[in-house]
Structure formats: C-alpha cells, structure tokens
C-alpha cells in the first residue's frame, strides 16, 4: 500500500513518519508533497530518506488547478492513503474525491493539536492554553469536508501543570504528536484501513410540549440500514402518544420545533453516558440489531428563545454549541470514544542519587502528592532498582492523605498560652482510645475502625452499620458528577462492610458559598448556586435511582465554602447477624481465593482522585478527577452482591473507591499477606490504558470480591444471569508481596510490609492563637445592622439561607422508598414543617417488632472562630440532641466523625498552618471528652484535609479561600418503638417548655453566631460553665419522660436559638404563643442564644405535674400554652411585639 505525506513547514511529524518505514510491512511511504518553496523539508528528506520522491508543488490561487497537479502525482505513484503533517491548506473537492472512502470520510489522515471537538482550527495549543484548560491533547482524525470535523482515529491527552508556559505546554503536545502519529501509521500498516468500520446515524426524539429534544448518535456494525428500516424502530424507542422519531433529521425536521435558536449539548467522548447505555439495551430488543455491535452517544437539542441565555452545561464533561438549522443537518461525528491502541509501556523512575528537591519535583510533576520524606523513604527502599510507574502509583495512592490519614497519625507538639503537650497520633489518642474504653463496658459496638464502616448491635435480629464520606473536590469541579459519585461511593462502602450490608438510608450535609453571592468570584470557580443545583441533582439521582431513601441532612451556606463546597454523604446499612453460616461482620479471604472484580469496566476516569485529595484545589487541577456515576449499573451490582452473599459465594468483599483496584486489593491482601494481579484481564471501557492507569483508575460501580475457587463458576454464572460483569483479575497469595502482572510481565512487585508499614510518621507543630475574628475574601465584610425589635431580628434570621426552608430541594429526594421511614424530613397536613432527624423502622429490614434506627447530624463551623474545640462539642451535642428529641435511647447512640479542614501543613502559601493544626488538636480532644461524658462511642470517621482554593480574580489579584474548620458529627441511635416517635410539632392546647439551661436568664450574655452575622452584637467567646455530665443526665431523664409518655413533641434549639425553634414548632398547626420576657434584662439574648443542650417540648395539660416532677432536678422553663392565634406574642419591658407565624413562614419559604 503506497502512502504519501503532505507538509508545508519544517515537517517534524513528516520526518517521524519516514523514520517508521523499517517497521512497516504493508505500507511503502513513497511520496512527499510540499506546497511551499521556502520549506527546508525537501532538502532534509532527500538527504535522510533518498527513497522518497519529493514533489514541491507551490500553492496557487486556483485551488482546483493546484490540486489537479497534486492528483496527477498521486496517480502516478499509485497513492492510496495520505498523512497530513502540518499541511497548511484546506483540502478542496479535487483532492478529497481522489481519496473518497466510506461515510463521507476520506483516506486522508490529519493530526490536530487539541482534544477535538475542542479547539478546532489554527493555533490550538495557544488557544487551549489561554482558555486555562486543565487538560489538552492531540487528535488524529480522518479528513472530511469540514475543518477538523472528521471521524477521530486516536486521541491522547496531557495535563497542564501550574508551572507551564505556553512553550512547555505545547512541547508536551509535540511529544505526544511524535509518539501517536507513527503509531497510527503502524496501525494502518497492520489493519489495512483506518476507516470507521461502523455505520453512524443520528436519532432525534422530540416530545410534544417539551423544549428539549433527546438525541442519540448510534454506531452499529454490519450492513447499513436505510431510513425506512430505521423508521420501523419508532414504536420501540418512542412513546407513540406524544413523541416522534427523526432519523438523521433534516433542516425541515428542525424547523418543526419553531425555535429561533437551537443549542446542542452532548457528552465529551469517554464520559460515562447513562442514557446511551440504556438506549443500547433497548435496541437489542429489536430484530434489526440482532448480531450487531452497537454503541450510542447521547445528547440534547435545547430550543432557545431569542435573547434567552444558553442552557447551562459543564465544559469538563460536555461539548455544547449553538447551531443554525442548516448546520444541524450535519451534526458532529466526533462523539464516540476512540480506540487508542497503546503498546505496553512501563516507565521506570531511577530515584537513586536524586536530591531532595529533585524528588519533590518528580512527585509534583507526576501528581503523586508525596512529600520529600516520603520520596526519600521510597528512594532508600528501592536502592539501585528504579521503581516502575505502577509501583510508584500504588505507593502514592496507598500513602495518600486520603487513604492513610497521615495527619491523624502524626506526632504533634501542641502549645497555646496556657499549656504545652505532645500527642502521639490524634486518631489513637482521641478517637480510638475513648471508644476502646467504651467497648470494655458495653458490647454493642461490635466492629469499629477496621472495616469500611462501623457496625453496631442495637437490635435483636440484625446489625447496623454506618459510614459518612466527603466528596468535596470532585463536587467543586463537576457538582453533579461529584455528588453522584459521592453518594454511590458511600453506598458501596456499606455494601463492602462485613460480608456485605444492604443500604437502607442515605444522609447528606452540604455546605456552599452564599446562594445569592454577588461579589466577583475568583477565576475557575462556579457560582455557589450552580454548585448547589448540580450537587442536589447528583444526590437526588444517587439516592432515588438506587432505591435508598434520603432521610436526613442539612444545607448550610457561608462565604468560606465558595472555594470548595463541603459535600458529606452518609449511608446506613443493615446486616443479618449471620450469612451463609458465618458472622456477617467477618471477612474471610484466604490465600488461593480468586480476586473478582464486579461491576463497570475501567476507563481513564478518576485518575489521581486519592492523591489529589492531598492537593489544594486550583485552576490547574486535572479534570481526570471528574467522573459520572451510573446508578443503574450500581443497583444491579448491589442486587447481585446481596444475592451472592446469601448464597455464600464469596469469602470477602470490599469496594473500589479512591485508588481503585490498587486500594481494594492492597487492603484485602493484608489479611492473606499477598496478592497477584493480572491487569490485562481487567475489562476496559476502551483500549489504550497504561497498566498503572488500570490499577489506580477510580472508575465507579465496582466491588472487589474474594471467591474460593470452588465457588467461582456459580458466582460468574449468577452474575451473567443478572446482567452484571464479574471478572477474575488475580488471586490472593501468602507471598508477602503485591505482584502486578501485565501480559505475563511483572510490572510491579511491592513488599506489603513496606507498602502498609513503610510510611514514615509525620512530625508536626501546632500552636493555638486563641479566638479569632472573622475574615473575608471579599472586598468588604457584611454590613451589620443595629438590633432594634425582636421581630426584625427574627424576620432576618428566618431568611438566613442556612435557616430558611429547604423544602423545595429536599422534596426532590425520595425519603420513603423501602417503606420504612417513620420520621421524615417534613411533617403535617401542610407538609412543610421540618423534623430533626430521620427514623427507620427496622421491621422492614428483618428485625422483629417496631424498634427503629434513628440518624441525625450536628455541624456548626462558625464556632471554630471562637474555639474549634467548643465547635466540636456543640456539633456532637446537636447531633445527639436531634436523636434525643425523637425519643432515642441515650445509652444506644453511636457517633461518626467527619473532619473537613483547611490545610494544616506548613507551606509558603499557608502561614497559619500551626494554628489550624492546633484547632484540629483541640477539636479531637474535645470530642474525646464528649465521648467519655456522654458514653457514646465513635465508630467510624473520615477526614479531608485540603479544603482550600488558591486562585486569582480577573484583575490578577491573588486570593485564597479556606473553609472554616468543620466537624460533622453524625449520630445513629436505637429507638425502642417507632410508633411512639416524637416529632417536632406542637398542638394547640398543650404547654410549651424550654428544657435545658436558659443562659440568658442567668448570664444575660449572648452566645451564638447567627445573630452576630447580621446585627451588631458580640457573643461570649467561651462556655466555661457547660458541664457535659449535666447535659447527659438531662438526656437520660428526657428518655425516661418520653418512655413514660409525658412528652407530646420536642424540637432542638440550634441556629437562631429559641424564637426560631418556636416558630418551627408552631408552623405545622399554625399555633401561637405568648411569652413573657419582661423579667429578662437582655431579652434578645434569651430569644436568640445558641447554647447547647436545650429543646422546646410540648406537654399535654394532664401530664404537667408528672412532667415537672420528672425534670425537678433539671432546668426547665415554662413558656406558655399554645393557642390558635398563629402569632408569637413577645411581652418585653419596652412593650409587646406581635410576630405573625404566617408572615414568618412566607419569608422562611421565600429564600431558596
């Protein structure tokens, strides 16, 4: 086969192609066409490659004449294919006709310096660089009549790093060009063609009355189907009541939409495309597609009114363009993920002799996020042997902050103005130790800190497990995908707990920047409201499509979360006590068991998720982190796993989350002391992944099982019957090593002792500077008002976005699938009154009777400014109290700690690292105090340590936005009888009490943060007289009172204090109350204090004396009888204020 090369300039790519000739069998490169006389290329080629005929045919005005001249040469040389190597001319019909092939493509190959369809045309490197894309790359495509629009043959990407200039950026591209173009030449040599072997068709499905048209690009093998044949698909793929089917729609079709503008949005090639997967499933039911291979790609055509803004999309995962009707006749062909054949290539990193700086630089360049001491340790370990890329990636992943929690394991020297001490591991000292102490006295915390989730035994027949995770960075980049993978990821944690637990409830706590932010945001940041919308949709799809009720959560707002939102996702699971004759909490893998990967295939998505959680977010963060989950795939995996579990088909299970197979196999092999992996067996979404990418890829929806060899046949055939992929990818051994093979070549051989025990301990300093004032990243802080009336204050507080009603958002989550949610987010005939936590009836989950599992959360980052230690206690108390008010037994409550911190490690852009680390120490120490006083163990937890954004405003001013130190405490407790669960809402006729200390009356000083945000008031900076034991005793009494039926309703006091809680208590029944504040000196402090340990309860008149007697040793304040006036009447020394509950409700609901 004879091939010509076309060039204009220096033709480096042409030379690379000619160099390839000795490796080719079928192809003969015979002709070089150059269109410019000043090109130095002909001379070089004549010298270096004397067998090539060089023809210089200078361009001329008449394109046809010029091309005819070229065609004559092509004919003379019997040329069949052409490679363009920097040929700076758009090809005309004369040349195109000569090379005409199938599907409107031509036997002409071009190389383009961008990831098409992005940046077609000239100067692509420069334009991509200026657009600040985190990733760019090189595309090889066939030429068609458009500019860079032909079918893609191959594509390869590179990451932009912080230090890149345009030169270094473009150089990375060049290196890829020189590698990929010869590869494609070899491919043509081997396969004889690069033509797409598949037929393509565009299918559009318009629905009556809707402004969005569903699009599918379809690619199929076999004989081409004509329009009439394809039209017979209509009954299969459209709803014939109100949908139509357009096959390769024409401009006339589009005109039927009567839309002046049309915007096309579709996924970038390679992004998880759930609609397309389902569409392919559907087509297989039609006889037309019998025996054909089909792939699809989905998109939408959005009708836009004149002048309307374009529909929103995310450029990291979508390609979007507006089109006129003419162009719509020929929609993009570059939609299918490209097959990229990469030969096995293992990189070796010689570390011996490298300086500390060189090691750090290498780590930074490779996104390993390993520091100099860690790199040095690896250098020492390997000595003269240069570790492979696979080994380095496995070490980087295993030793990442995300997986190893290095800061919590560090030795820390702490000091503040009054004390000085050393902590040898925050985790061991403050988290593990109090819980171990607890386990000596109580036996219900049956598995803590060693599995994917903590397991507790509250019920007679089943056990519960719970896990909470964060997915902050991914949610900042792609809010929808980030939150979706967050929720699906924590579901898998539960599925991978013990021998596999069934998820029965989801929770989510979300913190965003101000939803109405009007200040300019630094470059590269999405608006908080956009993030809220995307995250919300992700949580909705994640929970709803998996059939797991979202029963509890919170949405809070503060400007400190504008850089990185905090997205906490939690899941509760249920385990039978035994499965297939084994304790369900056990894991039993043994050497010889096969390693089976279950679920989705592996792609390049989610590379470096684990290590990048150890990096601060900035505008150069690689978008390989972005990925979308596939809830349907995971639901199938979940159903299959639970079925296989009950049949006893596997001995152990864990999930694939951060770090992918590297993490799951690495962890599981600890128990058997070894594993062997055959990477080439791992099913891939598309070829071309390097071995290390296969091993650390974080592609979603995968579980790893250990399967005894005598069960493997049963397991794989069950998987097949359920439509789930299950593949043997290795075996557990006792070799002491993690041996990683690819096509029989050992590409990684890592000592498990070194992998799991070689990481040196960090040594850190912590110094607390005392309470701090709030700072802002904005030009000026919020202007605060003078406090006048309580009415104005209350009206302001109920419109604080954190306090305001979230009903519109929360109702889009399914909170009662599985038919077990006894306390739901909202209550009442009017539906909108909020509850304090979620409660699940365990009778639906295999337990006898009516007992329940309750979940709640507590979070209050604002208080970290005073003292993060106090913040921790307040958060934990709030979580616990939210359970207490439902009637949960305080002796059966487990806590889960999730830390999201600003970077506490020293660095040039982090001057107050020691203070932030000290805040962490104080938080952990306080948490330990509370655990001991309350008798509630920590059973699971996680930390996220780099919640900072460093970037620039449009005027190049540098800005750093760090989150406030934030601890989320999730509490899960035992409820004896869901039929008696207390709700937050009080009925008229009952008497309202404030239970717990009413500090306003004693101290007359304000304590809180919400009022302070809007009004000129100053809070106390500490709560020195808060006695945890006293509060705990109150909760015990409270439980006795609820068990004796003395309490009708209860609601906790949190943000906004008493009056906000009262308002929420009264909404449901539009009740009213008159409160006498005339004896308070600072009645506003009484009204808005945010002290812990307090709740508003209602008591039936007949129970008053019993109630007061029960609480005789606790502070209880009678507030008054609930009337039907729907007014809060506040009697003050200065006169009486009347606040309408309805008016408040309107304000409260009008914010979000």
């Amino acid at each position: 086969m004879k091939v010509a090369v076309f060039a204009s300039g220096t033709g480096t790519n042409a030379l690379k192609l000619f160099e390839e000739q000795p490796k080719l069998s079928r192809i003969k490169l015979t002709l070089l066409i150059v269109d410019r006389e000043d090109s130095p290329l002909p001379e070089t080629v004549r010298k270096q490659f004397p067998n090539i005929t060089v023809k210089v045919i200078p361009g001329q005005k008449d394109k046809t004449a010029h091309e005819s001249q070229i065609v004559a040469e092509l004919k003379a040389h019997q040329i069949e294919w052409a490679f363009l190597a920097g040929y700076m001319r758009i090809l005309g019909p004369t040349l195109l006709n000569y090379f005409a092939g199938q599907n409107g493509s031509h036997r002409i190959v071009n190389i383009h310096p961008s990831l098409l369809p992005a940046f077609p045309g000239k100067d692509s490197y420069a334009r991509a660089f200026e657009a600040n894309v985190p990733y760019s790359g090189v595309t090889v495509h066939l030429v068609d009549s458009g500019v860079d629009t032909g079918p893609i043959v191959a594509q390869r990407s590179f990451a932009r790093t912080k230090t890149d200039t345009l030169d270094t950026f473009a150089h990375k591209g060049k290196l890829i060009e020189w590698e990929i173009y010869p590869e494609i030449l070899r491919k043509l040599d081997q396969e004889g063609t690069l033509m797409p072997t598949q037929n393509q068709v565009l299918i559009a499905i318009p629905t009556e009355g809707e402004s969005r048209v569903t699009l599918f690009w379809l690619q199929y093998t076999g004989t081409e189907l004509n329009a009439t044949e394809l039209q017979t698909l209509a009954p299969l793929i459209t709803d014939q009541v109100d949908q139509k089917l357009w096959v390769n729609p024409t401009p006339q079709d589009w005109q039927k939409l009567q839309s002046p503008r049309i915007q096309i949005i579709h996924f970038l090639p390679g992004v998880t495309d759930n609609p397309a997967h389902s569409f392919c499933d559907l087509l297989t039911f039609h006889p037309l597609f019998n025996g054909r291979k089909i792939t699809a790609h989905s998109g939408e055509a959005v009708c836009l009114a004149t002048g309307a803004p374009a529909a929103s999309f995310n450029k990291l995962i979508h390609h979007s363009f507006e089109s006129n009707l003419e162009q719509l006749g020929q929609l993009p062909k570059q939609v299918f993920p490209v097959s990229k054949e990469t030969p096995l290539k293992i990189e070796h990193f010689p570390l011996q002799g490298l300086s500390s700086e060189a090691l750090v630089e290498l780590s930074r360049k490779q996104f390993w996020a390993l520091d100099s001491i860690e790199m040095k340790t690896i250098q020492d370990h390997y000595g003269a042997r240069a570790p492979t890329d696979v080994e380095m990636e496995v070490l980087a992943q295993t030793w990442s902050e995300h997986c190893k929690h290095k800061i919590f394991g560090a030795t820390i020297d702490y000091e503040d103005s009054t004390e000085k001490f050393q902590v040898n591991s925050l985790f061991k000292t403050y988290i593990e130790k109090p819980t171990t102490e607890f386990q000596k006295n109580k036996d219900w915390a049956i598995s803590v800190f060693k599995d994917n989730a903590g397991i507790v035994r509250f019920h007679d027949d089943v056990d519960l497990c719970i896990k909470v995770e964060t997915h902050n960075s991914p949610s900042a980049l792609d809010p929808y995908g980030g939150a979706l993978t967050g929720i699906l990821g924590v579901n898998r944690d539960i599925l991978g707990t013990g021998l596999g637990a069934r998820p029965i409830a989801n929770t989510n706590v979300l913190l965003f920047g101000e939803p109405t932010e009007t200040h300019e945001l630094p470059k590269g940041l999405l608006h908080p409201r956009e993030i809220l919308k995307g995250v919300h949709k992700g949580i909705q799809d994640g929970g709803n499509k998996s059939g797991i009720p979202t029963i509890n959560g919170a949405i809070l707002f503060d400007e400190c979360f504008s850089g990185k939102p905090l997205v906490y996702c939690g899941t509760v699971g249920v385990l039978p006590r035994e499965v297939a004759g084994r304790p369900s909490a056990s894991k039993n893998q043994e050497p010889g068991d096969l390693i089976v990967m279950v679920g989705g295939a592996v792609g390049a998505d989610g590379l470096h998720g684990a290590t990048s959680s150890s990096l601060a977010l900035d505008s150069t963060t690689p978008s390989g982190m972005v990925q979308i989950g596939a809830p349907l795939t995971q639901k199938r995996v979940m159903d299959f796993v639970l079925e296989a579990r009950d049949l006893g088909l596997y001995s152990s299970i864990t999930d694939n989350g951060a770090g992918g197979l590297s993490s799951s196999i690495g962890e599981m092999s600890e128990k058997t002391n070894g594993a062997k992996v055959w990477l080439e067996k791992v099913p891939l979404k598309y070829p071309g992944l390097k071995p290390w990418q296969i091993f650390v890829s974080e592609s979603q929806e995968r579980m790893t099982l250990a399967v005894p060899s005598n069960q493997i046949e049963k397991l794989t055939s069950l998987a097949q019957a359920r439509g789930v992929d299950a593949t043997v990818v290795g075996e557990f051994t006792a070799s002491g090593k993690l041996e990683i093979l690819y096509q029989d070549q050992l590409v990684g051989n890592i000592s498990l002792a070194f992998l799991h025990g070689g990481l040196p301990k960090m040594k850190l300093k912590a110094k607390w500077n005392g309470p701090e004032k709030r700072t802002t990243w904005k030009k000026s802080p919020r202007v605060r008002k003078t406090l006048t009336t309580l009415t104005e204050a209350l009206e302001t507080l109920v419109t604080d976005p954190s306090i305001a009603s979230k009903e519109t958002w929360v109702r889009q989550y399914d909170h009662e699938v599985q038919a077990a949610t006894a306390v739901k987010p909202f209550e009442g005939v009017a539906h909108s009154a909020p509850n304090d936590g979620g409660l699940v009836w365990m009778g639906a989950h295999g337990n006898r009777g009516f007992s329940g599992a309750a979940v709640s959360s507590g979070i209050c980052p604002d208080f970290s400014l005073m003292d993060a230690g106090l913040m921790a206690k307040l958060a934990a108390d709030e979580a616990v109290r939210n359970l207490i008010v439902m009637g949960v037994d305080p002796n059966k409550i487990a806590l889960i700690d999730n830390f999201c911190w600003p970077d506490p490690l020293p660095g040039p852009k982090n001057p107050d690292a020691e203070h932030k680390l000290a805040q962490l120490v104080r938080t952990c120490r306080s948490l330990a105090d509370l655990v001991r006083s309350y008798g509630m163990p920590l059973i699971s937890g996680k930390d996220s340590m780099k919640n900072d954004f460093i970037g620039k405003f449009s005027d190049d001013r540098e800005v750093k936005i760090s989150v406030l130190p934030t601890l989320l405490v999730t509490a899960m407790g035992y409820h004896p009888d869901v039929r008696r669960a207390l709700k937050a809402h009080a009925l008229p006729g009952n008497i309202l009490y404030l239970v717990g200390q009413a500090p306003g009356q004693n101290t007359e000083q304000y304590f809180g943060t919400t009022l302070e945000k809007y009004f000129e008031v100053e809070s106390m900076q500490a709560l020195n007289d808060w006695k945890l034991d006293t509060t705990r005793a109150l909760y015990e009494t409270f439980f006795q009172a609820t068990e004796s039926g003395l309490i009708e309703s209860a609601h906790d006091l949190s943000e906004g204090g008493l009056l906000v809680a009262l308002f929420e208590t009264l909404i449901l029944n539009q009740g009213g109350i008159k409160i006498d504040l005339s004896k308070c000196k600072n009645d506003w402090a009484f009204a808005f204090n945010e002290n812990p340990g307090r709740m508003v309860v209602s008591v039936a008149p007949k129970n008053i004396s019993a109630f007061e007697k029960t609480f005789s040793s606790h502070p209880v304040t009678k507030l008054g009888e609930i009337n039907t006036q729907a007014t809060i009447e506040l009697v003050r020394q200065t006169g009486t204020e009347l606040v309408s509950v309805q008016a408040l409700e309107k304000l409260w609901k009008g914010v979000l």
Partner: protein
Amino acid sequence: MKKQVLVISGDGINCERETARAFEVEGAQARILHVNEFLKQPRVLLEYSIFCLPGGFSFGDELRSGKILAEKMRASLSGIFEEYTKNGGLTLGICNGFQVLIQLGVFSGIHETRTSTLATNDHGRFWNEWVEVEITPEAAKSPWFKGMSGTLRLPARHKEGRILPKDETTAKTLSIPLRYTRAFNGAYGNAAALTDPTGQILGVMPHPEAATHGFLNPHLGADAEANATQMRKIFQNAISWQKRS
C-alpha cells in the same frame, strides 16, 4: 391451589421488597423473581393469581420511564399476559411499574393502540409528598377497590406521573379509580391511577405499599391508623378476589 403473588425485580426496580411485604402481611405468599429469570420462562405467570410490577427506576428512567423494561418484556409477555388476565389474574403496577404497564399498552388491551401515557409532571420535578386521593365511583368495578370509598392518603414519589390521554376521544375511555383531591402534577382530571376495562389491571402512581402502617403517615392526627387500615384493604381485596365465571 394457585401460588399467589409474583413480584418482579431487577434492572433498577427497587420497591420489590416492600411490595411483597404488603401482600405477605395480609397472609399471601409472595415470590420476588428477577426479570431475567421471569423472561426465561414467562409462562410461570399463569401459576400466579397476582402479578406485580413494583416501583423503582428501571433502566435509570432513561428515554421514558418504564419504556425500556416494557420493551424488554413485550415479546415474551405477548399472549401469555392476555391469557393470564382472561383467566382472572390480577395485575398491579405501582409508580415505575405503572409506567411499564402504560408503555405496554395494557390499559386498552396489550395489542391495541395506546390511549394514554405518563408524561413529565407539569412542575417538571421529581417530588415526594403524601397526597390525598379520592376513590371514584369508577373504582367500584375494579376488584382492587371492592367495598372501598372515601379518600386515602399515600406518598407520591415520581417525576413522570402526569396521566396524559392521546386525545379527547381516548380521554373519555380512560377508567380512573383514584383522583388527587387537589392539582398535584397536572394529570388529566387529576387522575392518580388507571384500570383496564376489566378492572383487573391497576396502575397507580402514588405508593399504597408505603402507606399500610399508621406510623409511616406524616399527617399527624387520629386518622393515620384508619387510613392504613383502608390501604391494606387494596391488598386484601386482591388476595380474596376470584373471578366469577
């Protein structure tokens, strides 16, 4: 003696357990069967007297909710389903199961022209809220609602639940046993459910299986238990019903 309830699972269906439970607590035997197993031998249907397609997100709700599962089942069910119904078998589709049934076209006979669909709610959102529905006089001809009248409260949880007739003529042929007592999603005549002409096939958007206990009812007040008792009657009716020949 016939086996009683066949409940289909798999492919993203997710309410199979509570749906089976709702029948079981009334004393029935319910079998949950994966759709792939069912389609291997669809004649198994004839051994049952109640066929149930539960709620969920089959095939991720892509294209049209229920559409893909309906097409997956269509060929295998064809003939067998008519025979099953003719023999007196009852069918219940809840939420996504209703969407599957409507895509199958069973509300006007499986091979007839489609008369209605379930379109996206007029407010465009997935929405979870307890709704009140009125049991209409038309319900009387369906075995599912034997001896029932008044109103029921139960949770609606869907995005594509707006009952939409093909046109005015077909609208008149729809048999609507339940109507929302206030506008909820823009459904034709506030319809919340449909039955076929025999009344044996019931498709319902809100979830009766999630309202059979008083303590699941967020409407505080004394009627929660009474409401649950009424709800259970739907399942009891189905179990005790036998077609008169």
